[in-house]
């Protein structure tokens, strides 16, 4: 059952008059209930912005320029005020990157739970202190934390614990979809694994749709069942996770994969990605990756490649995944297959 159907999402960021930076361009996204999707890309590719846009958390000077976001049948792009606030219950939620700073320093964890529960209390719900404590302890146990955490202040907890508390708070909303924005970036590797394990287990148990935003392909590999790669604000590839590394991919995805290596291997071939990140205030008429792409041909500089079938998923590449909408690409692809060197 389709939970999220977002069309033509465009996010523009205007820090001062005259400058428009397109952080997200023409993204279409459809998610089924229960999917676990990873959103990867380098810093600045727009993945966090997309996550914020989908959960309606964009703040000035960023704003949603176009686009419809149908969540569970409701067009949430047009909601605001109280209606939007209500949508946060049994709707969508987001867990922020820095668990350290996501909690109010002057309120105890118990207060935090109380605030959330009371904010979404229905007409019949009365949350006494005892009820809040019970529910809080229940939610904390889901993220493997002791009830004693309730009485503490955020600064008395470690980074990993704070991240888990954030997740527990979000669970209080009984959301249908949770966006995890780089949940483990600020944590060390061991804690990282523990938190990711918790997230995976929760997703299996509770069945919510999860979007995992990360620049760490390894983390995404292990937890998700579908991966979307973003570059310069666009989705350039969309594959099932277990297909990554098998078969052909978008040149950028291949370059990303080439940045990883098994530390236990005998020989390691690491490759950087040549060139520099794109200037989002001056979008190119064609594919944004063309300046750095080893396969780029003439058409790549002129027309933005649409997502077209590649392997079990889709990719936006004139050469690897020529689209029926762009007939010239077919010709270019044939030429490329004949003479070019496929990079690994």
């Amino acid at each position: 059952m389709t939970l999220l159907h977002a069309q033509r999402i465009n996010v523009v960021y205007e820090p001062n008059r005259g400058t428009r930076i397109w952080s997200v361009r023409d993204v279409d996204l459809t998610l089924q209930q229960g999917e676990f999707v990873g959103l990867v890309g380098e810093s600045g590719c727009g993945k966090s912005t997309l996550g914020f846009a989908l959960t309606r958390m964009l703040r000035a000077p960023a704003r949603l320029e176009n686009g419809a976001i149908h969540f569970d049948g409701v067009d949430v792009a047009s909601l605001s005020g109280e209606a939007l606030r209500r949508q946060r219950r049994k709707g969508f939620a987001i867990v922020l990157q820095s668990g350290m700073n996501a909690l109010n320093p002057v309120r105890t964890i118990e207060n935090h739970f109380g605030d959330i529960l009371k904010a979404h209390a229905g007409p019949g719900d009365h949350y006494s202190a005892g009820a809040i404590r019970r529910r809080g302890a229940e939610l904390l146990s889901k993220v493997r934390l002791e009830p004693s955490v309730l009485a503490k202040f955020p600064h008395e907890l470690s980074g990993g614990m704070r991240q888990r508390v954030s997740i527990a708070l979000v669970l209080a909303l009984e959301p249908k979809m949770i966006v995890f924005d780089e949940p483990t970036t600020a944590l060390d590797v061991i804690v990282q694994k523990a938190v990711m394990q918790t997230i995976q287990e929760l997703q299996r148990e509770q069945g919510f749709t999860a979007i995992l935003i990360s620049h760490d392909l390894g983390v995404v590999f292990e937890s998700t069942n579908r991966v979307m790669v973003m570059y310069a604000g666009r989705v350039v590839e969309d594959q099932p996770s277990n297909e990554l590394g098998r078969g052909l991919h978008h040149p950028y995805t291949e370059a990303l994969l080439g940045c990883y290596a098994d530390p236990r291997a005998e020989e390691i071939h690491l490759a950087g990605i040549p060139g520099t990140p794109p200037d989002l205030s001056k979008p190119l008429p064609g594919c944004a990756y063309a300046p750095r792409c080893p396969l780029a041909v003439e058409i790549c500089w002129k027309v933005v490649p649409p997502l077209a079938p590649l392997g079990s998923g889709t990719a936006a590449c004139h050469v690897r995944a020529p689209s029926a909408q762009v007939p010239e690409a077919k010709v270019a692809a044939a030429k490329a297959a004949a003479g070019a060197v496929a990079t690994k």
Partner: protein
Amino acid sequence: MSIVTPVPPPTLPGAEVEIPRGPAGPRLPGPLLFLGRALRTLWSNGKARIGLVILAIDVLVAILAPLLAPHSPTATSFTPYQSPNATNWFGTTGNGQDVFSQMIYGARISLLVGIVAGAVATFVAVTIGLIAGYRPGIIDEVLSFITNLALVIPGLPLMFILAAYLTSRSVWTIVLVVAFTSWATGARVIRSQASTLRTREFVTSAQFSGERLFRVVFREILPNMTSLVAGSFFAAATAAVMAEASLEFLGLGDPNTVSWGTILYYAQQQNALLTGQWLMVFAPGLAIALLALSFTLVNFGVDALSNPRLREKS
């Protein structure tokens, strides 16, 4: 970095690629270029713009005083206690002096004391703040203690007392007294910023590359604090203008100089309100308020420079 011209695709992954660079910018732009850029940014802020205009008017009035004032400010040649009339637009004092001319010339002292005392206070604040922030340990502790002491000791009362003790009264005494009592706030702010910057990577790397302390402070740390220093200056200047006016009003300044504060002093002494010379009370106070206001407004612009969140949405 923007890619304006397409980079030809490399033949092998990871091969050396010519990355287009912009023209090499100077690390510390020439002072004039810097000032020009700062002024332009300030001008773009609505509140700062108003402040700059008022300030410019005050400066012009002060410089052109001899041309603008119809009479000499100190000449006692007019009929005393006059309300505003054709010869004396703002009326006359109890000593028969023209209030309007006094107002024009008064700009000089108020502006002078405000700017110079503000500058001296800021200079002391920056020096102490930088040293304390940059050199942790005993030096920092001692300087911080002195700063805290200077902070908690009430400035205005100390100023009054100092002024009362000092027998020679000149404008420069006032400048020194005012500066002496207002450096502490700026010093604290600058110290905390300097100590934050001290641990930042670019400073550490400069130290490792062997730059001397003096150069590190002036070329790495100070440029990152310009808006903070500017903010301190304008805050100190505002305080200095008010302080000078207060001192003069209480009769602790030099009664022979003509400043807006002394006009108010004589107004109080001569019960100007009772004799109908309300302009003598109204005008200098308004002028003081406007000058202080202009510094504060410009400071808004400086604040917005250093903290993008405070910038006005244009």
